[in-house]
């Protein structure tokens, strides 16, 4: 006889489940970011490495601190803070002072995430909140670019990296002229476009042979890392696709109107942080819409705003604000883009 003391577990259906855990998803995002981190270290040396470590640790420590303070179990093991830290570091100039990086990490998690209630409740992408804060607080440091592939990059820090807190970072102009091979001006392709009217070759942009933030220079590598996540079903391909589509369409419009004045769509897509932002920033699950049409509207909006800000705004880097704006618009986008359900009736009938 079946034992009368048989323990019967009672749950309600479904009894089976097959899904990666949140921690597994976040860990995979970390894995996907590691090649980009490695490439930026290869390009910019120990300064980039130090910056990556500082922002990541700062984000994780902040998350741990606030979880403890509010009496909750620490959530750093779900790796979402590490993701924010890595993302943040890759949007900063490689010679960015480390103490400012730490402030950025703290701001990202404190104001971008725990303030709203932690993972799942953040309205904005935390990394971008951190970067937006830094952009306003340290406008000079965040626009000071140093050349890639300097000879002594693995033994020598970029002078500004080790600035003491609240001290003015060392000027890098002199250092830059010393290490630069062929008259590197320190200007990013977007700055060159905006202020000098020089359009960088698309191939150089694609490979990453240009100045820029630590992790956003090689479009090719960004795409490959993104493909890994798409393959693992942990990145919604529709978001980067919509952002790129929105950018191309908007840029094409202006390029069509006056090709001599406005840059080509290819330049727009490949320059600056757009590719990185499209693949890793805009696709932040929590802060982007969930409805199929909403995802497209969101992506298109981000792409369109990026082009508008780049062409007509005062800043060279625009995609960050475009995404923050998109994040803010997400609830209203969702409200108007609820999916049509199976069997929906043409007229909603009043039912008792």
């Amino acid at each position, binding site marked *: 006889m079946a034992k009368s003391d048989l323990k019967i577990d009672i749950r309600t*259906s*479904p*009894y089976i*489940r*097959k*899904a990666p855990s949140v921690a597994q998803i976040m860990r995979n995002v970390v894995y996907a970011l590691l090649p980009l981190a490695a490439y930026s270290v290869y390009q910019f040396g120990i300064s980039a490495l130090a910056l990556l470590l500082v922002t990541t640790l700062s984000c994780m420590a902040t998350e741990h601190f606030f979880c403890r303070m509010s009496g909750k179990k620490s959530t750093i093991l779900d790796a979402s803070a590490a993701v924010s830290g890595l993302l943040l570091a890759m949007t900063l100039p490689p010679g960015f002072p480390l103490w400012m990086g730490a402030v950025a990490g703290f701001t990202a998690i404190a104001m971008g995430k725990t303030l709203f209630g932690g993972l799942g409740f953040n309205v904005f992408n935390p990394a971008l909140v951190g970067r937006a804060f830094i952009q306003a607080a340290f406008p000079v440091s965040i626009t000071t670019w140093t050349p890639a592939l300097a000879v002594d990059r693995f033994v020598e820090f970029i002078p500004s990296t080790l600035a003491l807190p609240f001290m003015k970072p060392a000027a890098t102009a002199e250092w830059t002229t010393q290490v630069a091979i062929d008259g590197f001006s320190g200007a990013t392709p977007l700055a060159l476009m905006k202020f000098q009217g020089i359009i960088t070759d698309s191939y150089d942009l694609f490979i990453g042979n240009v100045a820029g933030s630590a992790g956003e220079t090689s479009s090719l590598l960004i795409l490959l890392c993104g493909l890994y996540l798409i393959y693992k079903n942990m990145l919604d391909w529709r978001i980067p696709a919509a952002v790129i589509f929105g950018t191309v369409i908007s840029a094409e419009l202006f390029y069509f109107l006056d090709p001599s004045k406005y840059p080509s769509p290819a330049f727009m897509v490949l320059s600056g942080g757009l590719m990185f932002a499209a693949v890793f920033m805009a696709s932040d*699950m929590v802060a982007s819409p969930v409805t199929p049409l909403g995802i497209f509207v969101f992506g298109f909006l981000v792409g369109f705003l990026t082009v508008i800000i780049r062409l007509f705004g005062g800043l060279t880097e625009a995609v960050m604000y475009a995404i923050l704006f998109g994040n803010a618009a997400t609830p209203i986008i969702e409200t108007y883009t*609820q999916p049509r359900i199976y*069997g929906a*009736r043409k007229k909603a009938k009043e039912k008792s």
Partner: protein
Amino acid sequence: MNLFNLFGKKTFPHGIHPDEYKAETNAKPTRRLPFAPEIIVPLAQNIGKSAKAIVFKGQHITRGEVIAEADGFMSVPIHAPVTGTVKEIDIASNAKGGKEPAIIITTSLNSGQQVPEPDNYYDYQQMSREDLIKAVQNIGMVGLGGAAFPTHVKMNVPADRTIHTILINGCECEPFLTTDHRVMLENIDNLLLGIRIAMKCVAAPKAIIGVEDNKLNVLEAIKPHLPSDGTITIEAVETKYPQGAEKMLAYSLLGIEIPSGGLPSEVGLAVFNVATLAEIGALLPKGQGLIERVITITGDDLAKPGNYLAPIGTPLRYLLDYAGFQGAEAELILGGPMMGMPARSLDVPITKGTGAVLVLDKRATRNDDILPCIKCTQCLQACPINLNPSELGLLAAKRQYDVMEEKYHLNDCFECGCCSYVCPSNIPLVQYFRIAKVLNRERHLQNG
């Protein structure tokens, strides 16, 4: 039009692909389960009204005779699953954890268990539509796919609606289950007869059998028996859960959507499960009642998993013993792992609607924490109805049950469980929705 069909397989958008676990039982022929010494026959076995007992304590009953009669149109009679003596008419545990009236029968070990030969045979072709529907009610037929909705009620299509096609559901999309698979292989003649009877009942000129393409041997087996005039056809559909939901099957086979809140008859369809029609084909000509059914017994810690022809009312304890259950701790599920009902006790019987008994050990029981929704959209991409489970879940957490119903189509959810299955945050979405529906219903009742 169904765009998906243009690219090969007949299917519907969204859904999931769970592991099948069917190999353990799908190749084994159905065996007859011996009679349990005590049989518990609940009076409430179908949707609608319970049957009324017409036997008394101590009465000797013969297998197949009516022991409870239908109470009105939304009810079906119950026939004796065994020959024996009525031990008691009392309340007994049901699977839901409550108690319900049941006829408890002590199986007679001395007399034989033969069902008496019928006095006369019925030829469905000679019968009127009304007589046929009455006959379907008299044999106590309910939907054997799990819903246990009285079949004759479904066949009684309103006069202002015309049925152009009946769909015969042989998808069996739930993992682990192979009952319908075996029925379709072993009971082809009865199935086809049942289909013809159903076609006559609803006056449908056409019938399509839909089978998932993990059961291609069924297609091969049935095709030679189909009539050459093309009135009955069989089609393969993609193996995908919940293909066997009637809404999904209607879309996969014909590209037709059954309107929200409506019945299939609104768009000219009637949907029946294969096992239901096979039983009608077997029983109706003889006028015999539904007293046994094929069920899959499968899962963990079983020595003899397989498909068994089991008398209605067999207690789970007997069933598990016979299948050689060894475990000490388990989940017992009546039905499949996605939509089945948990059994609260070993002393509950199988009923007409029980298609399977599934035993899951600790392996399946996950006690992971429930995390906040990270809006990964997996649930939206899994929901076959195209709901927004993510938003519904957030609203449920805020107890805005009215908003869920009015703005987010809560009542279109048929609780297939795809959203819970794919949720990385382990949010029990379907479970939330069930609670929301019950509370909404109570609220509507209170408000009159």
